[in-house]
């Protein structure tokens, strides 16, 4: 910012209009010379009375980025949220959802008491019961299963206790609970989320995704991540991305099939054909390697491949080939590849766009490779490792269950370490797994899963799911189907330990009750304690000892009080006061960088993998011929040029571009491009894409009035040419038809989308989730909700709640990462037929069951897998047998 732009008084008058005399007095001597500027935050006052509002730190969970926040309380009510100035990655700022999150607490349709179903499942008839009655009932249902398992001496029966979560930020409480019960049947949602991103990446460098040094970079290639609206670490990333692009003059090149806010902001935006980012990335790598623009030292020292190997492997991926596949011109591919390789530092970022396709793992691996071959890994301004922090689990900790659960870890997906939860209803329907008690927590598959109607069908079936419990505080499409609801409290009323690699400064943070849970509601953590104490009242089942907490706060103390460094600062009490630890410094008022007391930048650590191993750690270690340093059979580092360094979180401690684990199952160990079936769609068909928007989170913010006011309907984006070819105009009622069925929605004709794509956002179109989400705000409130908010009852002016696309999205998973291919459904779009009403939805169960069989053919044992991987040099007749992971998941 210090390069002062020449300024003349004339210009100033011309553009500044009415500035007048102020200009004359401007001192332009030093950009660091700062006036007594206003404070950036950390306090708040009531506009009405001027009284200071009480500040309580917490961690945001309006989405899953887990930014640090401070809640302001006025007269016992949370009135305002703000970013925590002490949180080094949040830097005092919250996004739209974060700012609106307190509305969750005061949602008029929030469930305020446990409910027992009285009518038929899903009929909406409930009896209010107490938390005590509710936990007793759940405990008795669990105990029945446990007693049966014990009686029959079959520990596998314990896996009939199933726990499915969408978002688990309890810091291990869920696992502890299930393991204490002896069950391994814990299902997450990661395969509908981003799992193939991780599976494309983790075998190469260890857990989790990249953390880009946006603020210091000079060049960014963004593949299918909408970092200015969504993505992992939206808020911290977006802040630093703007710092980089505007402040540091970095170039942003963005790839998306439609104009997201990120692509609309980028210096250059490209619209590849869906699912072809991998081809583009490989072609760029081809250019970089063949033109000698690569970092040969980094490749030879820090990867498990050679330059020659890479050049050979990349031979078929010419820019011309990628142009053919993606539609991006070979000329542009060459140009961007050269720019990327020659501008330093540079980084890529990618999220769900490339990886949420069948074989998405390859696409992610190809993008990752661009950073590796250009030596941008862990550089200032480059592509850095995630920086998370852990906390100890309270002891004793229960061991995992004795037998692995089939639905929790489907054996046909051995590489999918984040599992394949989409398959559960199909497996259960086919009798492959039995369920006695199904619990769902922070999970709404009847809305958020592909072919969501299949989940509805399964969860409605009392034969398949005899007893079903929801912990949701809101009556979601899934919670509606429960037999028992034990409502959790909102994230502003409960305890959680947190750490997210949301930036380059690792830190811990907490959630704590900003206000006492409203109306006598009880936090989930307490419910878990109560249930275990009721399942095992005398401790004879050996479960109670794992939940020997006097209070949930004690449980928190057990996480934090013993952490070195934090302990000295005050442990849990420090966390309660500050919300985050460590505190790196403060946010500079002008640069927004983290600075110390003297105003000097607090630089994050770079080059983590080059950290030297101390002599004492080296004692007793051996160095393999390839340089891997091993101690007690464990790789602890790697020797490069005579230096002993910690390296990466892989077996070889190098970046494993060559993934032996892939090859074992007949997948290509190096990144490749596989042409998807959707690439061969018929000319009159389109590829359906769904996306998230900046002001909504998944299925759960449609009831927040500020966000619903900003965004409440989701017409289908369609290119003008595509629309014209179908005789459609902007706003027309249309049918979007896949092989599963159709939805009736409206067309939003826009230049900002690939002509072969139709895009529908996922945030709207609820059939449950309270009155506002369904635009029934004028109806009578149910007797179990908290009610209130005359604003919603009277002032909602919009009249369109959108149409949800998930029922027509086909199940199709990546055989490597196990990730749902959200963007692979082929559809036709046509004018609505007579009699069609906006919102009509029709999806076939049988067709979805067929999709399940079809997608299994891509799994490593399937015929399609084999025919698509002819190039992999293994003995196809002796692939490993599908096996459950031993000792749980």
């Amino acid at each position, binding site marked *: 910012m210090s390069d002062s732009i020449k300024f003349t008084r004339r210009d100033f008058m011309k553009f500044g209009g009415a500035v007048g005399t102020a200009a004359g007095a401007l001192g332009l001597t030093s950009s660091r010379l700062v*006036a007594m500027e206003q404070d950036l935050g950390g306090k708040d006052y009531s506009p009405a009375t001027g009284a200071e509002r009480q500040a309580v730190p917490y961690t945001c969970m309006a989405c899953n980025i887990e930014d640090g926040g401070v809640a302001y309380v006025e007269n016992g009510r949370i009135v305002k949220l703000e970013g925590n100035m002490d949180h080094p990655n949040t830097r005092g700022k919250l996004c739209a959802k974060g700012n609106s999150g307190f509305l969750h607490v005061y949602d008029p349709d929030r469930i305020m008491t446990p409910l027992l179903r009285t009518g038929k499942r899903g009929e909406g008839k409930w009896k209010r019961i107490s938390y005590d009655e509710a936990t007793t009932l759940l405990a008795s249902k669990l105990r029945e299963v446990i007693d049966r398992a014990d009686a029959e001496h079959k520990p596998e029966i314990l896996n009939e206790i199933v726990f499915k979560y969408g978002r688990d930020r309890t810091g291990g409480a869920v696992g502890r609970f299930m393991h204490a019960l002896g069950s391994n049947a814990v299902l997450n949602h990661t395969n509908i989320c981003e799992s193939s991103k991780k599976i494309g990446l983790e075998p190469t460098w260890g857990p989790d995704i990249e953390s880009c040094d946006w603020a210091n970079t000079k060049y960014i290639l963004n593949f299918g991540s909408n970092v200015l609206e969504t993505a992992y670490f939206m808020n911290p990333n977006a802040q630093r991305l703007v710092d980089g692009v505007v402040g540091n003059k970095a170039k942003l090149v963005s790839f998306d099939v439609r104009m997201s806010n990120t692509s*609309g902001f980028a210096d250059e935006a490209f619209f590849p054909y869906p699912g072809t980012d991998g081809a583009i990335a490989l072609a760029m790598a081809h250019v970089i390697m063949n033109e000698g623009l690569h970092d040969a030292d980094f490749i030879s020292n820090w990867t498990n491949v050679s330059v020659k190997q890479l050049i050979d492997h990349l031979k078929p991926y010419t820019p011309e080939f990628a142009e053919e596949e993606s539609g991006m011109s070979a000329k542009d591919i060459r140009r961007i590849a050269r720019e990327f390789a020659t501008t330093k530092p540079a980084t890529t970022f990618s999220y769900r766009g490339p990886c949420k396709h069948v074989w998405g793992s390859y696409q992610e691996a190809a993008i990752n490779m661009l950073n590796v071959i250009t030596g941008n890994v862990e550089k200032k301004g480059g592509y850095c490792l995630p920086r998370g922090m852990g906390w100890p689990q309270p002891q004793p900790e229960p061991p995992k269950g004795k037998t692995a659960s089939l639905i929790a870890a489907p054996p046909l997906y051995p590489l999918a370490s984040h599992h394949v939860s989409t398959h559960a209803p199909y497996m259960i329907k086919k009798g492959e797994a039995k369920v006695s008690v199904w619990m769902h927590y922070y999970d709404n598959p009847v809305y958020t899963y592909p072919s969501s109607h299949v989940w509805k069908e399964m969860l409605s079936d009392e034969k398949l799911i005899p007893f079903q419990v929801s912990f949701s505080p809101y009556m979601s499409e899934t919670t509606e189907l429960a037999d028992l609801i034990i409502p959790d409290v909102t994230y502003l009323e409960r305890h959680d330990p947190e750490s997210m690699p949301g930036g380059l400064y690792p830190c811990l943070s907490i959630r704590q009750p900003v206000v006492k849970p409203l109306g006598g509601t009880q936090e989930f953590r307490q419910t878990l304690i109560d249930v275990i104490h009721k399942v095992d009242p005398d401790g004879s089942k050996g479960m109670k000892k794992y939940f020997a907490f006097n209070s949930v706060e004690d449980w928190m103390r057990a996480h934090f009080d013993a952490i070195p460094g934090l302990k000295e600062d005050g442990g849990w009490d420090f966390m309660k006061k500050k919300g985050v630890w460590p505190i790196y410094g403060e946010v500079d008022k002008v640069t927004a960088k983290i600075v110390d007391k003297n105003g000097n930048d607090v630089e994050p650590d770079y080059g983590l993998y080059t950290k030297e191993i101390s002599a004492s750690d080296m004692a007793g270690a051996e160095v393999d011929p390839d340089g891997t340093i091993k101690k007690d059979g464990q790789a602890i580092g790697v020797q490069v040029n005579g230096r002993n360094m910690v390296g990466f979180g892989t077996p070889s401690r190098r970046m494993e571009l060559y993934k032996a684990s892939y090859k074992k199952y007949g997948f290509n160990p190096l990144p490749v491009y596989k042409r998807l079936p959707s690439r061969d769609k018929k000319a009159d068909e389109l590829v359906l894409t769904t996306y998230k928007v900046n002001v909504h989170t998944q299925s759960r913010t449609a009831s927040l009035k500020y966000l619903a006011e900003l965004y409440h309907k989701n017409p289908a984006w369609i290119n003008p040419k595509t629309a014209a070819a179908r005789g459609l105009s902007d706003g027309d009622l249309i049918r979007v038809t896949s092989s599963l069925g159709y939805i009736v929605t409206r067309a939003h004709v826009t230049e*900002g989308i690939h002509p072969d794509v139709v895009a529908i956002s996922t945030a709207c179109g609820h059939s449950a989730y309270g009155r506002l989400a369904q635009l029934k705000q004028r109806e009578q409130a149910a007797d179990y909700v908290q009610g209130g908010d005359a604003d919603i009852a009277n002032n909602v002016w919009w009249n369109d709640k959108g149409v949800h696309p998930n029922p027509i999205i086909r199940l199709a998973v990546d055989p490597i990462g196990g990730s749902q291919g959200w963007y692979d459904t082929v559809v036709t779009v046509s004018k609505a037929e007579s009699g069609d009403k906006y919102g009509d939805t029709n999806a076939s169960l049988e067709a979805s069951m067929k999709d399940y069989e079809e997608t299994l053919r891509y799994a490593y044992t399937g015929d399609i897998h084999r025919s698509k991987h002819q190039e992999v040099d293994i003995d196809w007749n002796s692939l490993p047998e599908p096996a459950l992971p031993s000792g749980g998941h």
Partner: protein
Amino acid sequence: MPVGLQAEPSLGVPGKKRWAMVVDLRRCIGCMACVCADKAEYDVPLGVWRTIVKVKDTGHYPNTKRHFMPRLCNHCDNPPCVRNCPTEATYKHEDGFVLQRYERCIACRTCVAACPYNARHVLPKNRDRVKIGGVVDKCTFCNHRVEKGLQPACVQTCLGRSRIFGDLNDPNSEVSRLVARHKTVVLKPDKGTRPQVYYIKPDRAQTEQVFSAPHSYAARSDAEDFYRHNRGSKFFSGVL
């Protein structure tokens, strides 16, 4: 010298403050955090806004762009809304804020008609937390925060750090430096209102979008729903 103001324009007057905002349009990512922070800070009801961010797409596939234009009260140094107010319910503060005295306002909407930036609204009577209704309201530049040494709420949370706030009479403040170093524009300077929200580097599309009617069906149908909802209500006797 403008007449009918309770405080003289303070821009450039030594010893006085002139609070102002600079909106760096290069940095606005349309995240809408400002809109929500503002709604929360004041319990702003649905259907009225103290601040908004307009959105406009331009270009033809594949060369398209998206433009954002945050908008709020300009805290004009020569505010037309103030002079016409029959009760001095709206007044000019000596540091530049243009403020409302709810207890005086009769909701004659003269000030609404006078403001060329549509920065004012009538508060509906049905609200959630704050019970003040049936009077005119507007952005206050968060004077209750600013006077306590804080940034306005929308600035505080601005993800892109697109909104910058400070004293334009202080040559060392960031707003002064930004205004000095960049070409800035104010909205409708020809109206003589002397707006104190300065925009850095607006595209033509951005300045045009503030004048344009909704174009897409999605936006138009929302506008229609909005007018339908308000039709027949007290402050809306069928003009639209």
